[in-house]
């Protein structure tokens, strides 16, 4: 069906390597799902855009060819094919839909542009398309604007649009990465069903081996623009041949928690009856106030890690921000080491520090990283010389070169930046470290390294960590205790091994059941 033969794509001269893709060859037959899996920079998304003929400016095909049904694609051939014979689903369903057009108009556009069907026929087909992707209220969805739908519903609309003209090939570029885990499970099931029913060939780009295990018939593993291993899903996942594939699979954290550690009972952080409501102010606001935290009570033992897991909107990030003092709760009490949190910024700095999610936004791009680590102690009165030498020591502690203190953030990779963020937090010698999704922006192998670093630091320094994550696999590996949150309420909490092995609350059960590839990968 689709054939990619020794395809090479060049990068602009300023890039870190010459070729984005180097001799990529694969076949995709009808009724098959091929997963292209790799870390960031592996060239998997470039592969998708090359097939669509939508390479970004600066990239160019220098060798090889792409053919569809025996016809070689080049130049103007693509316009006729896009949408009609090749459909595409993007990662971010919000930006892929026009926010000012009703969903129905956007779907109808597919037929208006590509066919000469009448109005009534198009309307009927639009409705059928939305019914087919399982939207709860297809009539209502046609009249809705994209922002009125949830992320999962928008992604269903995108799939309906991509399949509108019954293309032979569907390209999905990380279609579930922006979705919650339960929604992801539903969308993966939907793609599988539709593909079976219509016999569509699906090229599925992902970084997540769990997703691969759920959906793939065949797998191609990419590293730095080269396909290093290709084969049937079962073979690649169970008996990987290439060392890179083995390393990637080994880096996927297991969902099963290690045996519990012995912990003392000293409570370093106590949260009692915390309440936070958003959007209640103002008489003219039509929006219902949202209870982000509804009577949350938790406790963190000294030297342990308390995980807070949940999907988007569960209130876990609000909890982190309240504990970190970045948000003031409406009611309730936060006690650190037995004392209520002080109001003053300086006093609080010694008690709680935070590691942020986005390694690119959490460091000031215009200041040397050593300064950013040392400035906290300096603000609290440590002399400059001493603060800088402590910063050097911390850099070595988190696995960086002490001389790197005089560099700027852009000279570091994402994982290294996250290490600097950890060093910055540790410089204040806090009683509690709040880590808000600290590894979710990182590739799986880098993620494993940062998690290992956190565990190592905890063992050496006796850190107490409040660990916020949406990823149950990560939680299983790093946490001693875990609290599951849903719509601002802690629905279940206890030792991570117990909660994950025998979940009591139905929501915990559905979360665990939705973890992709739980049966096959990292078990």
């Amino acid at each position, binding site marked *: 069906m689709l054939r990619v033969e020794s395809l090479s794509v060049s990068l602009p001269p300023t890039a870190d390597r010459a070729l984005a893709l180097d001799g990529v060859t694969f076949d995709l037959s009808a009724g098959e799902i091929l997963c292209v899996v790799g870390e960031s920079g592996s060239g998997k998304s470039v592969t998708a855009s090359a097939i669509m003929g939508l390479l970004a*400016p600066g990239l160019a095909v220098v060798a090889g060819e792409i053919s569809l049904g025996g016809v070689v694609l080049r130049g103007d051939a693509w316009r006729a094919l896009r949408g009609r014979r090749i459909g595409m689903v993007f990662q971010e369903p919000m930006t892929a839909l026009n926010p000012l057009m009703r969903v129905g108009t956007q779907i109808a556009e597919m037929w208006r542009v590509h066919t000469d069907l009448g109005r009534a026929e198009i309307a009927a087909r639009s409705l059928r398309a939305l019914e087919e992707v399982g939207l709860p209220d297809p009539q209502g969805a046609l009249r809705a604007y994209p922002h009125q739908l949830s992320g999962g519903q928008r992604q269903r609309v995108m799939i309906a649009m991509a399949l509108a003209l019954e293309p032979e090939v569907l390209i999905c570029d990380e279609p579930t990465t922006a979705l919650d885990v339960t929604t992801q499970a539903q969308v993966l099931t939907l793609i599988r069903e539709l593909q079976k029913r219509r016999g569509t060939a699906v090229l599925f780009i992902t970084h997540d081996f769990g997703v691969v295990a759920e959906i793939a018939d065949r797998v191609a593993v990419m590293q730095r623009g080269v396909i290093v291993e290709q084969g049937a899903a079962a073979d690649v996942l169970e008996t990987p041949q290439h060392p890179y594939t083995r390393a990637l699979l080994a880096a996927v954290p297991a969902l099963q928690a290690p045996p519990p550690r012995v912990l003392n009972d000293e409570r370093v952080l106590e949260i009692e009856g915390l309440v936070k409501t958003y959007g209640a102010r103002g008489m003219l606001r039509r929006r219902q106030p949202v209870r982000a935290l509804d009577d949350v009570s938790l406790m963190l033992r000294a030297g342990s890690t308390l995980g807070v897991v949940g999907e988007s909107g569960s209130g876990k990030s609000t909890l982190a921000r309240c504990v*970190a*003092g*970045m948000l003031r709760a409406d009611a309730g009490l936060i006690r650190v080491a037995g004392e209520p949190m002080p109001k003053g*910024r*300086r006093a*609080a*700095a010694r008690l*709680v*520090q*935070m590691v*942020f*999610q*986005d390694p690119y*936004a*959490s*460091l*000031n*791009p*215009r*200041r040397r990283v050593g300064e*950013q680590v040392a*400035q*906290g102690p300096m*603000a*609290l009165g440590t002399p400059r010389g001493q603060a800088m030498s402590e910063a050097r020591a911390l850099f070595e502690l988190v696995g960086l070169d002490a001389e790197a203190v005089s560099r700027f953030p852009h000279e570091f990779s994402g994982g290294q930046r996250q290490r600097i*963020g950890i060093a*910055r937090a540790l*410089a*204040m010698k806090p009683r509690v470290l709040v880590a808000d999704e600290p590894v979710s922006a990182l590739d799986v192998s880098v993620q494993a390294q940062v998690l290992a670093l956190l565990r190592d630091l905890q063992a050496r320094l006796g850190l107490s960590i409040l660990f916020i994550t949406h990823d149950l696999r990560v939680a299983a590996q790093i946490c001693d205790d875990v609290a599951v949150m849903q719509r601002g309420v802690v629905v279940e909490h206890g030792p991570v091994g117990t909660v994950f092995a025998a979940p009591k609350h139905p929501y915990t059960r559905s979360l665990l059941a939705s973890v992709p590839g739980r049966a096959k990968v990292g078990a």
Partner: protein
Amino acid sequence: MRALRAFLHNPVAVAGAVLLGAVVLMALVAPLVFPGDPLGLAGRPLQWPGANPRFWLGTDPSGRDIAAQLFHGARISLLIGGTATVIAVVIGIVFGALAGFYGGVVDTVLMRVTEAFQTLPNFLLLLVLVAVFGSDLMTVVIAIGVVAWPPVARLTRAEFLTLRERDYVAAGRMQGLSDAHLIFREVLPNALPPVIVYASVVMAVAILLESALAFLQLSDPNVPSWGNLIGLGRTVLRSEWYVSAIPGVAILLAILGVSLVGQGLNDALNPRLASR
């Protein structure tokens, strides 16, 4: 360094830099080329350019050397442009930074003040200030700075509004840093590039405003500014038009230079825009 290289690879920016450099050079060599008082009487009034080899750009209605006034005028124009821009940018950054960083009541109060200044026509406000405080050069420069800051404040505020939400600002707050440190060391350096670009617009406007004042003979008559020379030529505009035209062209080229440099800076400091 990367920004500098991008700037030097941009022909438009280099052309602007050459024009601006020429004006700076004129200002620097003025006392060497024309050592005497540029406002002193030099010869018979209203000699056409080239008519007398001593005055290669001619003389004005009072018999003063136009070339000498042009060279010394470059110093005045740069002085006015530079100083007024510094005043406008400093006021604008302080207002914008405080409003954007603190938000809430501070923002409301400061922005209403900014709007009050913005709704008055610039030139009218300038006329009032000069009428009240007199028209010696320093007063004129300060008055121009005082009318030109509101757009700088709005721009700085807009940058601060997005930058203050960055995680590194939150991290700084959690490290116990003072607000002053957060504003000036964490946020401001990241907010500066668009403000620097806009400063070139302020500089061009400042030079123009002074010329307009001088044309109405409301600027300082005791300095050899380009605007004053245009004003002098107004009475003889139909017969000896060169008196106004020569400084007019000088202003045109100087402002063109400033604008092109500004555009070049914009392209160099915003690499994503430059590639379009």
